[in-house]
């Protein structure tokens, strides 16, 4: 029998990770409201040089860095639930693990560019603008692994053909909707204003809202699945 010790502990790291995400989001002065891509190099440099902003940029991005990696244990739990599904191959759980390795790496890269811009704010404003652009474009447009994660999970759920499937079909539908909501953000480089710009309705608010909603919903259904699994394991052991 597979050992499930410690899975509940890993699951309960999620509220901590969510708190880190929220504090990073509120600390970084460039998120609420999001910085505009139309800011000139001088305005961007002034943003990083502002003594009010600088510590908040650094602390915000330092904790944001922890958040991305903090999600990996939860993705590992999802991979284990996929393992319990009625599939013929481990392809879907492998694919979720591949997403877990790729996605946070890109997120770290965005974080690195922001911190580099803040490390020497006295640099030539053109260089600060470059780092700021790299950070925002990486953060906004890199939705590929998140989309793949949702689509793969949905496929895995649809093909989990057993009497009591691990996740109900609505979880699959939900994941497909999230995948669609994430797609417009890939076009973050296409416009400096409007809904597709990195501070726009679709790219910033809808996408980040979808990610937050995904974390909350998946935490609840994952908790339910782990609870059922433990009850079944105990019934077998008794």
């Amino acid at each position, binding site marked *: 029998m597979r050992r499930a010790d410690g899975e509940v502990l890993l699951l309960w790291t999620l509220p901590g990770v969510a708190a880190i995400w929220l504090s990073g989001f509120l600390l970084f002065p460039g998120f609420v409201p999001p910085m505009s*891509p139309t800011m000139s190099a001088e305005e961007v440099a002034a943003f990083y040089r502002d003594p009010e902003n600088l510590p908040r940029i650094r602390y915000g991005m330092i904790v944001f860095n922890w958040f991305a990696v903090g999600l990996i244990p939860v993705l590992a739990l999802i991979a284990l639930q996929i393992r319990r599904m009625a*599939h*013929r*191959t*481990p*392809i*879907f759980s*492998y*694919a*979720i*693990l*591949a*997403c877990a*390795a*790729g*996605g946070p*790496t*890109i997120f770290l*890269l965005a974080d690195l560019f922001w911190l580099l811009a803040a490390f020497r704010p006295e640099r030539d404003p*053109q*260089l600060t*603008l*470059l780092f700021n*652009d*790299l950070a925002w*474009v*990486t953060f906004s*447009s*890199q*939705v*590929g*692994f*998140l*989309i*793949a*994660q949702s*689509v*793969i999970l949905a*496929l895995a759920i649809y*093909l989990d*053909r057993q009497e009591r499937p691990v996740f109900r079909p609505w979880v699959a539908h939900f994941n497909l909707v999230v995948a669609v909501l994430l*797609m417009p953000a*890939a*076009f*973050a*480089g*296409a416009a*400096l204003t409007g809904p597709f710009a990195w501070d726009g309705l679709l790219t910033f608010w809808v996408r980040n809202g979808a990610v937050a909603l995904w974390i909350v919903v998946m935490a609840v259904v994952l908790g339910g699945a782990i609870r059922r699994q433990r009850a079944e394991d105990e019934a077998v052991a008794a």
Partner: protein
Amino acid sequence: MSAPSTGAMPERPSGSLVRKVAWHWRHDEKRELWIGWWTLVVFYNLYGLLFFVVTRTQPPPQPSLDPAGIVRWFDDRHHGLIYGYAIVFIVGGATAIMNATLAYSMRRMSVSRAFAYAYLVIYALATLPGMLLMGIACTVGAMRPDRDPELLSWLYDFAFLSFEGTMGVFLVGSLVWMAAVLLDRNRVFPKWFGYLNLCNALTEVVVAPAWIFKSGAFAWDGTIAWWTNMGVFVTYTAVFLTLLRRMILREDFGTGPLPDLPREGAPQASGSMEATR
């Protein structure tokens, strides 16, 4: 309604593509493998289209372009870079299911699971130098055409050197697959494919001088660094897609040697209705 796990499957429908796909979705025991295989086929075709036609970043331009030339290069393909890479960013995660399918080929071999796991992790990270870093650099370059030309040329170098010059992932990944194929006793792939992996691995060594030369055969657009590499890569990809398809057709979900493909016209071992008709 699910098909019984053994015995006869409902007859395959003839007719529209949608009905055929629906049949496989419902009844084909190998549907997970076929999802992976078709993702590979569609993705590689799309990858070629996006890199060669839409973004026109392949074949690569000269590393020796001056900053004014680089500004013109970005101007010439502004929309292609922005929209082409946006599509790359949307579909880029599909590599996860593709690499999972390739890792499965190693899991089906008689070798340790370590080979499949190593391959999976290496190629999960390979997506960054394989396309995403280049896409980020090109998008940032294209979004502000008025950027200082010196900085634009740094983005240009970042794009092409991250794409061409960071081949460690593909080098080690190919060697892992090679070792697995050569050690395997389950006949998943023919042994010569192991040596083709070595060819692919060696081309990844040959691109390393792209970090040193700005013109000539070893530069990032050179006959050796780019053309040889791309030639071998395209051949290698076409070969492994064909072999992978044969592997899926031969798959019996056992742990021993994979059976041979049934001969043309011979009854299928999976017990389809055609065999009893």
